[in-house]
């Protein structure tokens, strides 16, 4: 019990939390973030009301806007679903960005140099991208379980390694002779390009993969032995040890999948949108970082990621709109993301505890 000078409050742990309360709390957290960002808009000399109207009408109000939302949701979905699994095991994977880039590198290597028959090229790129991301993901898993190295630091540092690897490749060995001095690789052969829905940039095969995988990961978490092990380890590592669960096996599995899915996102961006390897900030725009918030807003539920990734895709698309029409810096979207994560984490307290007012002393 905490008592202020005059007002007295009682803070009690809730025995259970209903889904509707989770939803309501999340919505309130988002609203609070929107208000804070609105204040920033005002500082910029733009009415918050006008800015929000532009964000929503510019993204939701046209076929082009809607299509942009969906195509931006694809990498967020793949990365976010993987992160829900890692977060369930209490493995704080902040490295989806790097895992995505390595997936893109692997896909590029296969697309440009593999000499595979055309019908095998795309499947091989997806497979290679998954393996690349997974390898990038299991390194910090090993480091954590065997050497006790904090995974937040390790995954974050490996992002920079991935970024500089891509930079080196496009300035060095993979710099395309046909790129006329730009830091690009050569364009992919046509058989390495993903089909898109006509008139949009939605590379639908990746979208379908993402949707199917979010269902599969849900089934994995809720209905399988491995999923139970993940949950037990995440909720009480001591009990996991006591029950004979091997922490290395669980952590490796989780990061293999989490990294691999981020790798698939990288393949999608490369083969669906850019069709060549280019600068790391052009490939990803921080999808791997935004996906952390996507997974968190989904409360680590892979099915909910479908919706939260669309929501953040809307914010990114809307951010593009106000960038163009109001001349805002593109970093505005990061302010958004930060504010939302801040309020979401803060709102956890209200989910776990009930605060009641017991009157004046």
């Amino acid at each position: 019990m905490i008592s202020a000078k005059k007002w007295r409050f009682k803070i009690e742990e809730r025995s259970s939390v209903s889904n509707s309360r989770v939803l309501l709390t999340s919505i309130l957290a988002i609203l609070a973030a929107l208000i804070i960002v609105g204040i920033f808009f005002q500082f910029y000399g733009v009415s918050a009301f006008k800015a929000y109207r532009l964000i929503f009408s510019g993204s939701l109000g046209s076929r082009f806007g809607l299509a942009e939302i969906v195509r931006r949701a694809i990498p967020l979905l793949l990365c976010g679903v993987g992160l829900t699994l890692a977060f369930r095991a209490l493995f704080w994977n902040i490295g989806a960005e790097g895992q995505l880039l390595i997936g893109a590198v692997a896909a590029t290597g296969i697309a440009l140099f593999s000499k595979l028959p055309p019908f095998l090229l795309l499947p091989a790129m997806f497979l290679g991208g998954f393996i690349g991301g997974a390898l990038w993901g299991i390194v910090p898993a090993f480091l954590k379980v065997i050497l006790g190295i904090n995974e937040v630091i390790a995954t974050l540092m490996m992002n920079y390694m991935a970024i500089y690897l891509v930079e080196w490749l496009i300035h060095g060995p993979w710099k395309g002779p046909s790129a006329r001095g730009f830091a690009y690789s050569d364009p992919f052969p046509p058989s390495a390009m993903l089909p898109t829905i006509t008139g949009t940039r939605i590379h639908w095969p990746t979208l379908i993969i993402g949707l199917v995988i979010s269902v599969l990961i849900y089934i994995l978490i809720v209905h399988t032995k491995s999923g139970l092990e993940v949950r037990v380890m995440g909720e009480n590592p001591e009990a996991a040890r006591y029950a004979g669960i091997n922490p290395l096996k669980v952590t490796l599995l989780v990061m293999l999948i989490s990294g691999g899915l981020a790798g698939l996102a990288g393949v999608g961006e490369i083969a669906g949108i850019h069709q060549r390897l280019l600068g790391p900030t052009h490939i990803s725009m921080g999808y791997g970082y935004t996906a952390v918030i996507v997974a968190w807003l989904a409360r680590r539920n892979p099915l909910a990621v479908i919706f939260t990734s669309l929501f953040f895709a809307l914010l990114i698309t809307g951010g593009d709109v106000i960038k163009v029409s109001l001349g805002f810096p593109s970093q505005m979207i990061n302010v958004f993301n930060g504010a939302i994560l801040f309020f979401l984490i803060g709102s956890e307290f209200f989910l776990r505890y009930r605060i009641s007012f017991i009157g004046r002393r």
Partner: protein
Amino acid sequence: MNKAEDYAIELRRIVKRFPGVIANNGIDLKIRRGEIHCLLGENGAGKTTLMRILYGLYQPDQGEILVNNQKINISSPRIALQHHIGMVHQHFKLVPTLSVEENIILGLDEGTGPFTNFRKVRKRISLIANQYGLSLDPRTKIWQLAGGKQQQVEILKALYREVEILIMDEPTSVLTPQEVEKLFTTLRFLVKNGLTIIFITHKLDEVMKVSDRVTVLRKGKVIATIPTQETDKETLARLMVGREVIFCLKKNPVKKKEKILEVKDLHVLNDRGLPAVCGLSFELYGGEILGIAGVSGNGQNELAEVLTGLRKLIKGEIYLDGQDITHCSTREINKLKVAHIPAERIRVGIVPTLSVSENLILNKYFYSPFSRGEFLNYKAIKENAQAMISEYQILTPHYQIPVRILSGGNIQKIILARELSCDPRMIIAMHPTYGLDIGATEQVRQTLLSQREKGAGILLISEDLEEIISLADRIMVMFGGKTMGILEGENIDLERIGLMMAGTKYRGEKM
């Protein structure tokens, strides 16, 4: 007023209830000024609760507190400190990366504005340290200090705050024997300088050595307050455990037949890399309960962890049903039908956020019918939960409710149900009734006895002598990681056990 009636503290009819237990049931306690007063009792007797009330960490449901003959309401440790009452907790509340002086002044306002006047602080610390015979370099970081020195910092911290009444909660549990001697010297010095000390313990030796008077608590009530000189260890042991101790639960004699567990020359290290079990050998037979008694921290935890594969041993051999399990993993040992009822049931035995039904299969989800291939079979999991809930009388609103909202007794029933439902060959039970109310305690004991009837070998590790004496067929006492001997049948005797717990080896009939 004559000196004998000058009370520093007077507690009157203190009652404190927790869900399902009465921790303090009408306690009266008078502490004389300038004495070392021991509060003696087993785990769960209510010692710590009572002192937390005095230090303002808990509020009593009923009763009153008098400090220096004035009735006061101690609503927080801050108020307690204002009345010069301080407490040294069993687990130190120090910041390891800060220095001694920084820890001592933590939370105080020493100096002007944002600046701390460390010269003044240091001068005062060394003054107090000299006065009470403590030697500490104020600039050392806490993590560089051994347990005994850290405790001195805690004491110094209290003295710095001008504490006159010092509560020490099981202060020796983290100390080496040499450090204990040093602590006792310090305490005597403090008392000589006018302090009053309340010393919480469950160790008889310490009571005899250090205290002026002793109050024995049992099950939330004061049993007696006696001047230490007028009593002895045996009397205290009897008071602490209760006269009615050896009420026998109905037991059939052991048919000693098959050897279930054989431990040969076991050596194990503790978390700090020091020897915890040193050359332990014993055997456990089917259909018997082998009680392992001993003051906590004498290797019992490490023994249980080694036997369940949670800790690696450095030397020795372990056989289960003749099979070498010395280097088996937890999962492998579990599959050989070894049940483990862990000491810390909430931290280790369950996953608080998972449901009752999932917790009931925590270490058997990989068996049919709970899973088929990689997939969990929720129908079987549900049926198992419903069967267990009715068989073990687990009080829960639903099998899908998260376990964390259940009471301690029901959580223990869940662990028992899970561990014992597979017809175990061996059961390792640690403090299985610790903190449970009488009804739940009774049920747990009956369950263990019925497993014994079925022929399981049971290793009962407990600090509760009453429990061990009423359940065990043989009693092994551990001290310093070694066995002090095994008592059986008529040799089982509380005083003898008490002496063995203090490190006397048992050799045959006479001691």
